[in-house]
């Protein structure tokens, strides 16, 4: 195994007391960092030293630390989740950095994601998009046989790739328009591809896009940074699929019918 030396880094970290206050960069030293440490562990160590000094610790979101929950995420030198592709910041290792490097940490910046404190932002706009339709309506009752509904392998695989989205917000953060197109489209695609979700796909597309537009997100201009920054490498074809679903749903929007035998 490659034995890399410990690193000494300088960190410029965005400190902001709360949403109202004006933030600024503060400089911290991170001495003797093991290349095997994760990025968050490195920040933990700085925080411990701050506690000893009686200073306010650096706030950042995290939970699982294994790249599956979507809690973590901030900008490292302008890259969402840091320089390594397909990785969340909790899974990013310090061996990706070099000794003596200065590293800049900033929170996600988007009007739809107000800063709560330091590197933490409020991503509840995403929750509201999910609430608008990112689910299937399943009635309670006996669990159906798992093999009763056949799903083509291709669809299952595509749905799985879309379902990999952990909702971290890197797409919005890295997009110059702060567009939520990749996130919303991943959810719409994931559910539309599966028979359990397909029944509601039209209404879902209408409702989720409407909710996305009512938040302070911008529009997609196909720069592709969202997909490039996505720790789960969600593909741009999801956005195409959303656009198509939304067009079809708008075009074929049904109206309630009455009369005839229904009377």
């Amino acid at each position, binding site marked *: 195994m490659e034995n890399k030396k410990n690193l000494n880094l300088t960190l*410029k970290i965005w400190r902001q007391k709360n949403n109202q206050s004006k933030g600024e*960069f503060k400089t911290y030293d991170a001495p003797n960092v093991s290349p095997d440490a994760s990025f968050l562990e490195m920040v933990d160590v700085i925080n411990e030293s701050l506690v000893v000094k009686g200073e306010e610790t650096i706030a950042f979101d995290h939970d699982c630390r294994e790249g599956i929950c979507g809690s973590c995420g901030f*900008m490292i*030198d*302008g*890259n*969402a989740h840091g*320089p390594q*592709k397909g990785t969340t910041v909790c899974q990013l290792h310090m061996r990706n950095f070099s000794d003596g490097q200065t590293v*800049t940490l*900033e929170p996600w*910046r*988007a*009007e*739809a994601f107000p800063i709560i404190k330091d590197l933490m932002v409020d991503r509840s706009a995403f929750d509201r998009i999910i609430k608008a339709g990112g689910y299937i309506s399943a009635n309670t009752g006996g669990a159906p046989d798992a093999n009763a509904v056949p799903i083509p392998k291709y669809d299952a695989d*595509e749905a799985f790739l879309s379902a990999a989205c952990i909702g971290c917000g890197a797409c919005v953060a*890295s*997009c*110059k*328009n*702060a*567009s939520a*197109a990749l996130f919303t489209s991943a959810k719409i695609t994931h559910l539309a591809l599966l028979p359990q979700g397909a029944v509601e796909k039209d209404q879902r597309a209408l409702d989720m*896009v*409407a909710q*996305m*537009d009512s938040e*302070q*997100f*911008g*529009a*997609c*201009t*196909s*720069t*592709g*940074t969202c997909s*490039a*920054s996505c720790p789960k490498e969600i*593909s*741009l*074809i999801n*956005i*195409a*699929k*959303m*656009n*198509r*679903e*939304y*067009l079809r749903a*708008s*075009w074929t929007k049904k109206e309630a019918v009455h009369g005839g035998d229904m009377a």
Partner: protein
Amino acid sequence: MLDFLKSTVGRKYIMGITGLVWLGFVLTHMAGNMLILVSGDLYNAYGHAIVSNKPLLYVAESVLILSLCAHIFTAITLTIQNRKSRQSRYAITPNGSKGSSLASRTMAIQGSIVLAFIILHLITFKYGAEYTTNVNGVEMRDLHKLVLEVFKQPVYVAWYFVSLILLMFHLSHGAHSIFQSFGILERKMQKSLKKFAWIYAVIVVGGFLSQPLYVFLIHN
């Protein structure tokens, strides 16, 4: 459908459809221009044929102008919304694999310069000096003479090159992103699509740029 047209997704369809009209137009415009390489008379005759069919000309012109206006108007509304959505900037912009291409980030600036170019272009050529010539006994406008005259001015040629290179970036981003906007992008197309868009843009702009080169090489 009104909700559709107002949504961010619907407005991308508007950008795409109106853009597509112009993608088609610049291609045919370029193809027509190529006649200059055959002969000045043929070039003039082609121009004459186009302006002679008045009904068709007016329909085509209206479609182009309406598309352009819708394209610009939608672009402005989207740009305003997009700027509002991201008001603070990052201290560092990424330049590695997580960045975006300069062409895709600067569509609005390219578009504005291309618009200025279109207006100037119409003033220079469509509403420019009216020379006349006679091809096979038919009296017609001598566009060939005008082209030679205009492309002998170094300043105009420089501006022409700059605008067309920007147009190339604008077309290449547009030609590939309409597939995403229209929802016809599939995984298997992703790689070849960028290439296709670039080949298209290079052919169109290369064709246009051959005009000043022709003037420079043949008529100097």
